[in-house]
């Protein structure tokens, strides 16, 4: 099954919608709690990243009984230095994002540490984050 979602920039009220949807999907399919926890962490952080850092984007969820693959893609402005962005504690989050509890610099590290496969590609045209879980 493939599910597609649009993600609006700076819409913190909607943030969490996709990760909640995926969590419910996995609960309904009786996936183990440990896996659901890791998926929730990774998808929430990735969703928030698109909301607080990008001009907007989309999320495609590809689910089958063996694997969950989720691709977050946005339309920019891109990550200047991916290595820095992957470092715990490094953040470029805005004041608005920080006031709402984000900007700890733990987003990408949390994603990478939670999933089975992780890929990130970025240019000034946008960023694509691919996360895969073996179920």
């Amino acid at each position, binding site marked *: 099954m493939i599910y597609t979602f649009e993600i609006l920039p700076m819409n913190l009220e909607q943030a969490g919608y996709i990760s909640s949807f995926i*969590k419910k999907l996995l609960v309904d399919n009786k996936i183990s709690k440990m896996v659901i*926890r890791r998926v929730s962490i990774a998808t929430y952080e990735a969703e928030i990243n698109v909301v607080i850092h990008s001009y907007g984007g989309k999320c495609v969820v590809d689910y089958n009984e063996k694997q969950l693959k989720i691709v977050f893609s946005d339309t920019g402005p891109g990550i200047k230095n991916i290595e820095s962005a992957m470092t715990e504690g490094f953040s470029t989050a805005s004041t608005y994002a920080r006031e709402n509890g984000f900007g*700890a610099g733990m987003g990408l590290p949390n994603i990478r540490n939670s999933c089975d496969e992780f890929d990130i590609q970025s240019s000034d045209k946008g960023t694509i984050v691919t996360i895969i879980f073996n179920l």
Partner: protein
Amino acid sequence: MKVMDLLKIDKIRCVTPEVSLDKPIVNLYSSDLLSWVMGHVREENTVLLTVLNSINIIAVAVLLDLSAVIFCDGVMPSEDVIAKAKEENIPLFTTDISSAQAVKVIVRYESLL
């Protein structure tokens, strides 16, 4: 200890009386950084203590299966946060004491049970 036991601690008040308080309290965690909460809370039915009055607290609470959220240092959750919490069945509490003091009173109460 269950979430409903928090009602017996006079310094802590419930702001979502409609929501069930039947979940257990397995652990306590205090932080105001959401990614820190996401990355560090290991057990479901953890209670989060925070001063962060943001709607995103509720999303995190749902994803991590937190059993309650306590807003400390006199922070009162805003209407939209309370509304979302009711929708998602997350009990919210508020207290005038700090998160560290709140942990102390909860641990002290639990030792009496």
